[in-house]
């Protein structure tokens, strides 16, 4: 009996190890042959060109030829996205809000000077005459954040359910590449405008995409382009376009930046429309990257596209996103040439990558660290879910792990790779797994209840009938009062802390709630469908279903021992009726393995 078990274990270990192509395939862009194609290759392709697959989806893809698989995944043949639901707007934007001033002091200054701001008039007399204006300011700040979080949910659901996962995965790439965030843009509508560009044009032409993004109100707002005017060019927009969006640092001079900034002068937006303010545009001659002419912004982008380094830079970044971090200069040049030869059409490059031997080589398979959004969507997908659960909150969870949609930390987007992982985040990832399988019954929806202690304190005191001054006093600290807290306590025309509380309240009233269903999972059913008869088979099935790189054999043995102890038997038939909780614990342990982070 013991010997029999040992033999079985050896067999099973071989079965769960994922296979990759030979090491010599590394850096080889030759397409794989139909004979090379198998279940593991199909699994790898689905994992990288999308958000991963269930065994059934992988099996279906494995039955195709590599070319058929690519036609489906990259060229979207036989897929239809028209049935995916559009975003359900709450309808929260008020006409007076545009143009939204850059800060609260700017709003109150404007109100003092003009007698109104944000479409709200200053009270002619009485106490705190500017309070309604300040309330409206905080209302929009809060409402835009909440609605942006709803857009993020909508997008994550698309990632989970779309028949074209590459379209969304590419949109996610561009969101990190042409990064802008809600904290600066402060308008969910502009961020959605950018997302639509990424989704519709993200697998199209890079030049057209760059022009569309450069003209999008979201990006113009994010990079302060709207204030770049003739005679005093603001360099931020031009610098980031070259440094981060197209060429990479070191391929242009500071003078090129200043000249490009002149070409972009006058580019602006009015609400959601791109405009060029002719009187602010510097129509003079510019010398940019060795060419001279009366260039405008689009001319500058076209000149950038003529630089060989642009195609190399973009192709290299796309490769790192889909394949692996380390990329030889030679391979990068080859990939750049593919992009250049196809006039910046992105699909031919993606096809080349996803069919290449390099993509299936040992250096590429199972070596990528999942981004937090990938981790979440990939896990939900492999659990077989049809929608993103409301508990745990998708945005809070992915944000805690370092990647909240519409909140890249800086204009450089997310660094990716190993930077996704720190000791703290590794533990946090395992906790996320637990929150899916054992939802917190004390969960409070963050779009209804605020975790902000100050807002809660003010809300409580106002309800107790305190006046605004007393209700907003911060008496939680003793000793030297920090300057910032002192400043928040002085102004007679309005009270900032009250505005913050009231704005929150107004926003909750108008922004639709996110549904808070928990994950609908039945691991027992999953196991029953597979005809697995003993605990070792169950552990191996779960490892193979959920992990691309198995844990060490010692860890695997521990998992088997754990399940045996939990179920009180090795025989699944015996445990049929009570195994769900134990299987969930097992899956949580699998999600806690360092190797679970690998894709």
């Amino acid at each position: 009996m013991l010997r029999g078990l040992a033999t079985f274990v050896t067999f099973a270990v071989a079965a769960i190890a994922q296979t990759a192509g030979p090491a010599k395939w590394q850096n080889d862009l030759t397409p794989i042959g139909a004979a090379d194609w198998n279940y593991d290759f199909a699994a790898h392709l689905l994992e990288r060109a999308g958000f991963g697959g269930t065994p059934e989806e992988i099996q279906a893809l494995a039955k195709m030829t590599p070319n058929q698989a690519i036609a489906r995944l990259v060229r979207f043949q036989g897929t239809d996205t028209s049935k995916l639901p559009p975003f359900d707007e709450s309808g929260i934007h008020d006409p007076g809000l545009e143009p939204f001033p850059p800060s609260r002091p700017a709003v109150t200054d404007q109100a003092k000077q003009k007698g109104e701001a944000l479409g709200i008039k200053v009270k002619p007399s009485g106490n705190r005459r500017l309070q309604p204006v300040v309330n409206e300011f905080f209302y929009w700040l809060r409402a835009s954040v909440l609605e942006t979080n709803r857009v993020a949910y909508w997008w994550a659901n698309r990632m989970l359910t779309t028949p074209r996962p590459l379209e969304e995965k590419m949109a996610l790439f561009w969101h990190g590449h042409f990064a802008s965030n809600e904290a600066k843009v402060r308008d969910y509508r502009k961020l959605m405008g950018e997302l639509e560009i990424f989704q519709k044009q993200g697998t199209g032409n890079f030049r057209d995409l760059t022009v569309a993004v450069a003209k999008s109100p979201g990006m113009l707002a994010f990079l302060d382009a709207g204030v770049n005017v003739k005679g005093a060019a603001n360099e931020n927009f031009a610098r980031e376009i070259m440094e981060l969006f197209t060429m990479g640092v070191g391929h242009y001079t500071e003078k090129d930046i200043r000249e490009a900034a002149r070409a972009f002068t006058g580019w602006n937006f009015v609400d959601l429309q791109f405009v060029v303010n002719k009187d602010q545009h510097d129509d003079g001659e510019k010398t940019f990257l060795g060419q001279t002419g009366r260039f405008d912004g689009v001319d500058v982008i076209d000149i950038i596209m003529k630089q060989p380094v642009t195609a190399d830079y973009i192709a290299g970044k796309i490769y790192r996103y889909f394949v692996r971090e380390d990329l030889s200069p030679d391979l990068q040049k080859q990939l750049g040439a593919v992009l250049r030869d196809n006039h910046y059409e992105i699909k031919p490059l993606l096809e080349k990558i996803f069919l290449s031997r390099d993509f299936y080589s040992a250096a590429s398979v199972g070596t990528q660290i999942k981004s937090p959004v990938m981790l979440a969507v990939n896990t939900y997908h492999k659990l077989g879910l049809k929608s993103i659960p409301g508990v745990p909150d998708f945005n809070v969870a992915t944000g805690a792990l370092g990647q909240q949609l519409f909140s890249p930390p800086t204009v450089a987007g997310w660094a990716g790779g190993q930077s996704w992982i720190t000791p703290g985040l590794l533990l946090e990832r395992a906790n996320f797994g637990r929150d899916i399988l054992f939802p917190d019954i004390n969960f409070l929806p963050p779009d209804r209840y605020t975790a902000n202690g100050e807002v809660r304190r003010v809300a409580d005191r106002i309800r107790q009938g305190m006046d605004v001054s007393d209700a907003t006093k911060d008496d939680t600290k003793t000793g030297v009062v920090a300057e910032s807290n002192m400043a928040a306590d002085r102004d007679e025309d309005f009270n900032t802390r009250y505005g913050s509380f009231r704005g929150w309240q107004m926003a909750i009233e108008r922004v639709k709630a996110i549904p808070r269903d928990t994950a609908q999972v039945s691991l027992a059913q999953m196991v029953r469908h597979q005809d697995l008869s003993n605990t070792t088979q169950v552990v191996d099935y779960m490892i193979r279903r959920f992990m691309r790189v198995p844990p060490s054999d010692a860890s695997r043995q521990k998992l088997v021992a754990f399940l045996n102890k939990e179920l009180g038997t090795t025989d699944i038939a015996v445990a049929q009726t009570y195994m769900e909780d134990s299987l969930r614990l097992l899956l949580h342990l699998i999600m806690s393995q360092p190797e679970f982070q690998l894709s």
Partner: protein
Amino acid sequence: MKDSRFSFPKASRRDLLRAGMYGVSVTAGSALRMALFGQAAANAAESGPDGKILVVLELSGGNDGLNTVIPYGDDAYYKLRPNIGIPKNEVRKIDDHFGFSHGMAGFERLYKDGKLAIVHGCGYENPSFSHFTSMAYWHTAAPNSGEPYGWVGRLADAMAPSAPPNFIVDIDTRQSLAVRSRRHVPVVFDDPKKFTQEVFYDEREALQPAADGKPVDNPSRRFLLDTARSAKDASALVQEAWAKYRSPVDYGIVGLDLPKVAALIDAGMPTRLYYTAYRNNAFDTHVFQNDTHKRLLTYAADAVSAFLQDLTRIKRANDVVVMIFSEFGRRAPENVNLGTDHGAANLMFVAGNNVKGGQYGKPPSLTQLDAGDNLVYTTDFRRVYATMIDGWLGYHDTQQLLNGQFQPFEMFRA
């Protein structure tokens, strides 16, 4: 040895850490204390007995030094900044030439107490105006080179080559290049409350790491296994330190991550090098900068001065120095949007009880700018690093560590 806590034997550390593994909470806080004593002794043996601590605070985004320590006595300043120059009457004057931005009451107090050093004109040759490039230069202390490790990481390698756990703590959502080390795995976390794996009782045994001794070929897998080990070493300690920490000191509205540092120091964490940041390019003030910038400075000054008060409260003020920097200063003339663009030379600050307060380095000229209207640096920023490494932490071979000769300032009380 200054501190009697360092004299405990290191015997039982491993056992106790195992008990506290993955943050499964341990009774009575004993794991923390016992685990620390042994480690502190080990560190002390490697790097000198006094256990001095350096805290680095990064102001990301490029702080506008000219509107931080304002040269109000120089007419050229108001010529460069007719609209965003801070009026003389709003400046917190520290002498007849310079004064702090109005919100920086905390720094004014520290300066007047002789605990704050201002270093003028810090920068380097051929400055980069890219946030990411220039920040990488500051992180690696190696401008215009491809140095892969951070200066704090290299310092840890030099001070403690056996890489004891928890020598470097970096509080952020992702690891800074500055702490990237050849030997050490820095402890990186953001929220100490969440720096734990929440496990069910039944799962504990199965979660003990089980390496099978086989070589790991996959570099990403190797990285994950190393990180898991560091998490295991640190999480119970950090959690417990934070749970115990109660401070009456007012860190202000933002506080940065300095209360977390205070909590760890208070708990006797063996960490010698802390790295924190005012995050997310906050200081990148291209437009309408004055309100925003003043607010950022207020928060930063509040937090740093509160941190020093807190250290006094826990009786560790003599062991800690805070060094503050930004990846560049901003363009000397204002731009048309009431903001400033990326610049070059900038201020650095060093704060602490043992710091000889005052001004160091030569203030850059406001009339002789470079071709791009930038301040020309007068002090290589690595001189300030050398001051921390040699003058404060007592590691003398700065030439090798910083790849060049950088004269430290005489900045500390004997």
